[in-house]
């Protein structure tokens, strides 16, 4: 609330925005063919302006590598990171638990189950929308079952919500294993997709995830102050004029929608939604209106960096979900231990 914290927020926002842009350009240059930043900027500009003259001194394969191979993947990774961090902010704000994220509620498992079903049945009814649609349906059904399980006397208990999420998540994981067992020849596709990957990203995935993330940001920002007040508990927030039950449902639906789209496009990628909001809360405080934009950008930077490491640095491409879990897991344990100490981020 003080001037000092506002200035800190502005500086951090600008720094993160610049870092996001630089990270996108730098990682576009990295890979089997190394491309300079100047060439990347020229290729991007020429495709926006439709002016081939900019490309006169550039190798003819480079525009293809930049525009059709690398950028879709890079932007998808950035947007998925932003989406997962956004979902994390919402779930943590509503559950009043800094350790909550799409996984604690079973939403990711629900989305993954829906998407696995679509993959197994090879449903191509709606082209590129089949898997996201099935994932969203899985996420929403899971959300309603979990909420139903944890509602007593018309009120949702935050603690039982997590417990129900864990139980339903476990059942769905078993369901996914069963689908894998049934999948036979297709099992490799499901397994690889479940571990998380950006390899098959296209401009379509960029558009779909981009749309979902922007929609999610707008809705959440609209209810940002309500979400702040809701951290006081539902009795207090009701008494302070917040339509707590309604806002909670809207925001849970929003977070589940964004999660479902991310899971559908790239598989299960863990820990981004957990670590990023936690770290950012440490930097800008708990106000969700500040937390949202910085978490989205930081989530994007983190996931893009991880994907670039696995794509261009490591000798073998490790599935991104495995990489984030390997880095994020121990990190999470450290935060979990530090949480015992008092602090603003608790």
């Amino acid at each position: 609330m003080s001037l000092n914290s506002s200035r800190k927020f502005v500086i951090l926002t600008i720094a993160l925005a610049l870092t996001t842009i630089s990270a996108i350009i730098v990682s576009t240059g990295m890979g089997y063919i190394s491309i300079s930043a100047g060439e990347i900027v020229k290729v991007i500009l020429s495709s926006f302006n439709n002016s081939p003259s900019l490309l006169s001194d550039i190798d003819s394969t480079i525009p293809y590598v930049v525009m059709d191979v690398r950028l879709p993947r890079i932007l998808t990774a950035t947007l998925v990171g932003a989406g997962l961090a956004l979902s994390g902010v919402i779930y943590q704000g509503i559950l009043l638990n800094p350790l909550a994220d799409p996984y604690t509620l079973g939403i990711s498992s629900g989305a993954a189950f829906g998407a696995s079903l679509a993959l197994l049945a090879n449903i191509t009814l709606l082209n590129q929308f089949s898997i996201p649609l099935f994932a969203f349906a899985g996420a929403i059904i899971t959300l309603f079952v979990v909420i139903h399980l944890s509602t007593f006397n018309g009120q949702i208990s935050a603690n039982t919500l997590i417990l129900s999420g864990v139980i339903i998540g476990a059942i769905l994981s078993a369901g996914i294993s069963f689908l894998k067992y049934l999948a036979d020849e297709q099992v490799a596709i499901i397994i690889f997709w479940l571990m998380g990957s950006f390899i098959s990203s296209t401009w379509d995935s960029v558009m779909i995830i981009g749309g979902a993330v922007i929609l999610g940001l707008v809705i959440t920002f609209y209810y940002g102050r309500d979400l702040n007040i809701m951290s006081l508990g539902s009795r207090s927030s009701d008494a302070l004029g917040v339509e707590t039950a309604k806002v909670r449902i809207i925001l849970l639906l929003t977070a589940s929608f964004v999660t479902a789209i991310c899971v559908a496009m790239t598989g299960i990628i863990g820990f981004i939604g957990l670590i990023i909001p936690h770290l950012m809360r440490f930097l800008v405080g708990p106000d969700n209106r500040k937390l949202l934009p910085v978490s989205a950008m930081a989530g994007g930077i983190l996931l893009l960096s991880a994907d670039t490491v696995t794509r261009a640095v490591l000798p073998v491409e490790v599935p991104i979900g495995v990489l984030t879990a390997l880095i994020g897991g121990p990190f999470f344990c450290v935060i979990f231990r530090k949480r015992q100490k008092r602090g603003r981020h608790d």
Partner: protein
Amino acid sequence: MINPPLYDVTNISFAYDSALVINDLSFNLHKGKFYGIVGPNGCGKTTLLDLLIGNRAPKSGSISFMGNPVNSYRRSNLARRIGLVPQEFNTGFGYTVEEVVLMGRHPYIKRFASPSTEDWHHVNRAMKTIGIHELKDRYTNELSGGQKQRAVVARTLAQDTDVLIFDEATSSLDVKYTLQIFNVAGKLVQQDNRTIIAVIHNLNLAAAYCDEIVFMKDGGIHQFGPTEQVMTPETILNVFGVTTEVTRDPYNDKYQVSFQYLD
């Protein structure tokens, strides 16, 4: 002359699933009075407060607030008229005391607007009244239970409502701060003609501060009336099953409840 009732409660009942918690209650409350609600644990006091504030709807019967059904008001509209100091004081992710008190102004601040000078005036006045101004930059999750509870009282004062509902608002406070909060509440009634509805466990505090007392038992009203009429050994024995003597305290002339302690 009698004011038209602030609250007109008629034959309300409320049940959690099948357990009846509020059983056919009817009463009127008037503006400018200090009401106490007392009764044994689990007799439905907190549920009654939730019904009065519109957080829950009765299963049957009606609650009229200022002439209209309480559930017909928009939440934000109600929040400008009725404030609640809850029993539990969840202060959320480490907000500062000032940030928490400012949340009391939520019903007045437009969605994307910043707090106005008037909002800050109410926030600062509330913090000074409760004596937590020097704690304003402290994080609420670093405060003691009593300090948190005072921050929550300040938040409700900043809400600047005509009706203030206290749900055991002083349960974590020592005797000094308990008296401070009750004195602030008493002044709001006497000087500003506001209405206090307070669930109070301490019968001596209820006797000292309340104009009228509702004695609740098993989801119903056992006795309701002016303190001097209802604060009697018979009522206390019937409601709590405890033997007492009620006298005038020579020190302050307030009613005083003395208990017969079991050995």
